[in-house]
């Protein structure tokens, strides 16, 4: 079936043959019969750009492989198929008092996608990224064979090339994940309203280590001394004795209301200087400083999940998310980027700033020790130029782009940003010499 596919940003759609295989054997057959334009796996399509689309080729819909095969409560291990969403996984684990340690900004991603993009969450400074918790994975490679890979065993190079490898080493079929015990499904949250960017940076540097989860939102519409004012939200998992009596009766409860779904008919341009400023003002004011507040998962971790298809709010022209990381020493670049965006006239409402902990062994894994900053920008004339300018700042400081969000940079930028790119490329070349696995992103960035 020919289907027009795009990423979550709804930019650059292309047409591919979308197939939904019923079993792993069918996946292997499709891969073996692949033609010139190749094959790529797709999960829930939450990458912002083009890594899960494949113009003129085949796209494997993996969401049918949604079985959680085994939960080992004592060992803290769970064996899942690649199409299981983190939402389903979290819901299944909570009754056992277990928790997937890495949850990104949305739970609507598959395990396969989370591995391929090596996603991170608000707890990166403590627990690392998704790949750090994968104990083994089954990878279908270009020759049609299935290899079981572990982080340290034979084939560990392919394991780490698959983590963050954007689906280009093969198709992840199954994985065994490490999960952690929790007493409740709640968080004890400290919220700090902060006047400016410098303060926001300073507070996170000072005592992030006291929290399991830490993230900040900042305002790019306020200028001058209030530039980068924001809200710092940090939390730890609530222990049972920290819950109010009412919640203690069902400490592992989980409720994710879907309040409404955004219709598909909104025009572009709804987010503009006026609405952007109003939103930012509201967001800033609604979060006064307070400590020790008990919040549930949706409110603390995934507030956007209550709105279905919120990406439609940006209209048909779509939007892009610009996310980069720079070393701590290059903190000035964070400031410059915020200033540059504030001065540009482009408006971003959802802005995130966070401290990363150490990176991992995966050559294309995004997180590195330093700051990561992320802005959502609706596509408008001049946006390409602004992003090209930001690229120079980021790459010049030894920073890099997050490929799960990336939709417009150059092949050269990826090579500059990821010093171990050649190492990754060599593994890909050895396991997929003919380039069976291909996506719009792999063609665009020559991966």
């Amino acid at each position: 079936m020919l289907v027009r596919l795009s990423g979550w940003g709804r930019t650059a759609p292309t047409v591919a043959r979308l197939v939904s295989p019923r079993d792993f054997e069918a996946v292997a057959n499709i891969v073996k019969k692949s033609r010139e334009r190749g094959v790529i796996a797709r999960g829930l399509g939450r990458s912002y750009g083009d890594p899960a689309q494949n113009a003129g080729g085949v796209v494997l819909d993996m969401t049918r492989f949604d079985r959680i095969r085994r939960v080992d409560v004592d060992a803290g291990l769970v064996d899942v198929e690649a199409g299981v969403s983190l939402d389903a996984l979290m819901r299944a684990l909570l009754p056992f008092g277990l928790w997937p340690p890495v949850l990104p900004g949305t739970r609507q991603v598959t395990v396969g996608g989370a591995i391929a993009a090596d996603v991170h969450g608000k707890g990166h400074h403590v627990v690392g990224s998704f790949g750090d918790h994968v104990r083994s994975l089954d990878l279908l490679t270009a020759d049609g064979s299935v290899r079981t890979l572990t982080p340290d065993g034979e084939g560990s190079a392919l394991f780490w090339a698959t983590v963050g490898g954007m689906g280009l080493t093969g198709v992840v079929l199954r994985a065994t994940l490490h999960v952690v015990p929790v007493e409740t499904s709640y968080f004890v949250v400290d919220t700090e309203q902060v006047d400016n960017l410098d303060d926001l940076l300073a507070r996170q540097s000072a005592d992030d280590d006291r929290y399991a989860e830490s993230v900040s939102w900042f305002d790019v519409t306020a200028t001058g001394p209030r530039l980068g004012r924001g809200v710092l939200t940090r939390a730890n998992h609530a222990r049972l004795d920290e819950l109010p009596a009412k919640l203690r009766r069902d400490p592992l409860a989980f409720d994710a209301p879907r309040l409404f779904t955004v219709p598909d008919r909104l025009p572009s341009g709804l987010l503009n200087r006026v609405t952007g400023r109003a939103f930012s003002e509201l967001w800033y004011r609604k979060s006064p400083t307070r400590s020790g507040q008990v919040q549930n998962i949706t409110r603390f971790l995934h507030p956007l999940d209550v709105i279905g298809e919120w990406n439609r709010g940006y209209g048909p022209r779509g939007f892009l998310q610009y996310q980069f990381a720079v070393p701590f020493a290059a903190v000035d670049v964070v400031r410059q980027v915020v200033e540059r965006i504030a001065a540009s006239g482009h408006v971003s409402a959802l802005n995130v700033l966070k401290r990363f902990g150490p990176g991992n062994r995966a050559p294309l894994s995004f997180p590195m020790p330093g700051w990561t900053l992320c802005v959502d920008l609706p596509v408008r004339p001049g946006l390409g130029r602004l992003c090209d300018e930001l690229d120079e700042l980021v790459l010049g400081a030894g920073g890099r782009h997050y490929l799960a969000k990336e939709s417009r940079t150059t092949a050269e930028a990826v090579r500059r940003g990821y010093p171990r790119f050649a190492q990754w490329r060599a593994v890909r070349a050895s396991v997929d010499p003919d380039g069976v696995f291909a996506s719009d992103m792999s063609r665009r960035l020559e991966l």
Partner: protein
Amino acid sequence: MIDAVGNPQSVLVLGGTSEIALAVVRRYTAVRKPRVVLAARPSYRRDAAVVELTAAGVPVTAVDFDARDVDGHPAVLDKVFADGGIDVALVAFGVLGDAERAWQDHEAALELAGVNYTGAVSVGVGLAERMRKQGHGVIVALSSVAGERVRRSNFVYGSTKAGMDAFYQGLGEALRPHGVTVTVVRPGFVRTRMTDGLPPTPLSSTADQVAEVVVRAARDRRELVWAPAPLRAVMSVLRHLPRAVFRRLPA
């Protein structure tokens, strides 16, 4: 591939010495360095364009292409697409000819029809086949307002443009399910080599102004645009004028 903000990675110009097309290429190469293929007859102008783009750091190749040689078109396109896909293809060739000769001289009439219509259909079918396979791409067809309502003063040229315009609009419908966009651009009077010596009409533009319209339309995946935009309203009126009135309008 075309990225989220509309930057193509490869641009093909059929009629690679067209001033409008080269202005489009310059606009693309001012932002990024896409692979550029100039398909045209060998000429000094083609060489000059290659030299200019190469000096600017653009990977450019020239390919021999003659709009009249329809039998040779498939081979030319095969060669072009063999080096990887084409994201944006501009169908930019065309001849204006001598309008009075064109309706009285058999050979001149066939030359216009052969280049502007038959040639355009020939490459259109070839591009469609190849872009369908790659599941994406933009074909920009440089039409003309002259085809929207033909005038006594240049109706042979106008009729060829009317034909190619209709063909590419239909091609756009056919290619929609395959992820390929066809953008038909209708410029008014453009001050170029082709119109040198002709008296300019109101709402005339430069090649670069048309190029700006083309780049924007391709980026936004528009299907039909006028250059400049107000021509749309003007042509809408002209299209509906009774003949008796239309023929009295100044040429």
